[in-house]
């Protein structure tokens, strides 16, 4: 049920953005299309089943994009520094980290966030382990890498997805 | 002004990409270069104020034909390995 409601709200928002029109026939047509899509696809793919909708989770859903955008801007200045300096200061490694998230969508969000933050790129996910290409590896053991790459996002995603 | 600069540079890039598509030894390179020609062609159509042609070129030239080429290449490779 929660899955249905969240999917319908998100898809309806996308419809509103695409049509950019608030006339009544368009709204009704959008509602019918969204309902059919959710009916056909959400039964087999319960994407939002594990999302939590308590007040703390809602607050974190609003905070998370801010944290993420800040990390994205930091990542870009990091890339700029490395690309523009003549000596190309990189020390790459592929490290293994562990995550405590269980839901697939939570892991997807975590992997995407890791890819867009300073110097890290998700290469492979196997079970609880994420293998990450790190452009400036300061720690190559599991615990040290987990501490410095994953913790910052997991703190928020754990509350939102669990 | 900027429109003419865009036009000339994009056309030169499309030309060199087409030459790459013809001369490349590797088939993957050829297909990607052909897709890149379609990409540049659709931007050029847009500069000539033909958004409908540009959209068709984007959908068919760059999207569909690249996907079909790779699909067929995959089939050919798989059947070749069994022989």
């Amino acid at each position, binding site marked *: 049920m929660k899955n249905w409601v969240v999917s319908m709200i998100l898809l309806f928002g996308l419809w509103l953005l*695409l049509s950019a029109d608030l006339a009544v026939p368009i709204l009704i047509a959008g509602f019918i299309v969204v309902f059919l899509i959710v009916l056909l696809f959400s039964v087999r793919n319960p994407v939002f089943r594990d999302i939590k909708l308590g007040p703390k989770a809602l607050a974190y859903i609003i905070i998370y994009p801010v944290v993420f955008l800040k990390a994205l801007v930091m990542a870009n200045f990091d*890339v*700029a520094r490395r*690309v523009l300096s003549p000596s190309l200061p990189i020390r790459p*490694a592929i490290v293994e980290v562990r995550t405590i998230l269980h839901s697939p969508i939570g892991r997807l969000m975590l992997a995407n966030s890791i890819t867009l933050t300073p110097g890290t*790129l998700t290469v492979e996910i*196997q079970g609880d382990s994420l*293998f990450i290409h790190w*452009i400036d590896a300061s720690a*190559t053991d599991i615990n040290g890498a987990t501490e410095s790459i994953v913790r910052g996002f997991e703190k928020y995603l754990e509350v939102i997805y669990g | 002004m900027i429109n003419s600069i865009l036009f000339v540079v994009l056309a030169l890039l499309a030309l060199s990409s087409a030459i790459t598509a013809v001369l490349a030894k590797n088939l993957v390179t050829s297909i990607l270069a052909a897709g890149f020609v379609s990409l540049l062609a659709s931007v050029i159509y847009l500069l000539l104020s033909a958004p409908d042609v540009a959209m068709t070129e984007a959908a068919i030239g760059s999207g569909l034909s690249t996907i079909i080429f790779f699909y067929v290449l995959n089939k050919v490779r798989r059947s070749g390995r069994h022989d």
Partner: protein
Amino acid sequence: MQIAHIIGGIVSIVGSLFLLLGALGIVRMPDAYNRIQAGTKATTLGTLLFLAGIGIAEPGWLPKLAVLILFILFTNPVSSHVLARAAHHIGIALTSRTVADKLREHEEAARD
């Protein structure tokens, strides 16, 4: 109205500088993985700022630009992850400056 166009233009120029940075990154970096890193991050923020600048200049276009921005923000990391995975799967070599490759060790341990 004029001031919005000027602010939007400056934001777009900053975005295009990040796009240039991403292009420079894929030319300068030594191996495929580092190229993916530079390419993904710089072009994501670059496109985001570029489209945001156009949105500031023309507020009526914001819904469509928002769809485009959301789409790029979600698909760009996925496609770079898929590319990195394919590169590692077919055994593209890492650069000689690499200090560790835990994934290869993991796969070799699984095969034994």
